[in-house]
């Protein structure tokens, strides 16, 4: 199931949008796509979970 969800996140992502983001947010979104770990990704981005979730939605990544 973890692999299925990872694939779902990967396929739903707007990669053009992600590539245009500053490095911290870009790496954090990629970490989220790989692991599904919202808290860790938010910490890498230096934002709260709530703020990171807004970025996730803008990047089209399914949860």
């Amino acid at each position, binding site marked *: *199931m*973890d692999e*299925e*969800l990872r694939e*779902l996140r990967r396929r*739903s992502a707007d990669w053009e949008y992600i590539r245009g983001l500053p490095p911290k947010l870009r790496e954090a979104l990629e970490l989220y796509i790989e*692991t*599904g*770990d*919202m*808290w*860790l990704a*938010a910490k890498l981005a230096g934002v*709260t*979970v*709530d*703020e990171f*979730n*807004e970025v996730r*939605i803008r990047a089209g990544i*399914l*949860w």
Partner: protein
Amino acid sequence: MRVPSVCVMDACFIIDWARWRRRDLLWRVFSAGFVPEPVLREVVTPTPLRALREWMAAGLLTVYPSSRELEGEAMGLVLEAMRDPRIPRIDPPEALCVAVAKRVGAVVLTENRGVLRAYQLAPERLAPAMVWNSLRLLAYAYARGLVEAESFLELVVEYEGEVKHAFSRREVKAVAREFGLE
């Protein structure tokens, strides 16, 4: 299934659930809820903050203060998960929710897969806490007739559309089975 009447909410649950127009369904399932202090700090956008304010004003929700002892217990759970390859990572805030829920006898509401897996593998280890994600909460509410919908799947589709959270169809089927909806 005996379900505690109290819940402990994690940030990833709150920011999702608050987007759903029928979010107050939560209080048809539970009579009270806690948000651990460090979890509260993760919530900063208007919609979830409004939901928290409304629930606090209604006397349904309050903040559970953190302590060194509680945080130590939570980190123990994080470390335990890191050593068990069957469990996806558990982050400190989710672990803190579990530590609180163990103390007060509550249902942890979280989308963290690590905590859910740890509970599935050894529920007695986390007792008297239970662990649900929003999908399980929806299933329980639907099974008990607390929410109206054409079917459980319709309810899930409505929730997914409004909160932008997609569940794996395999998990939806498994949860439907778990709550006797098949």
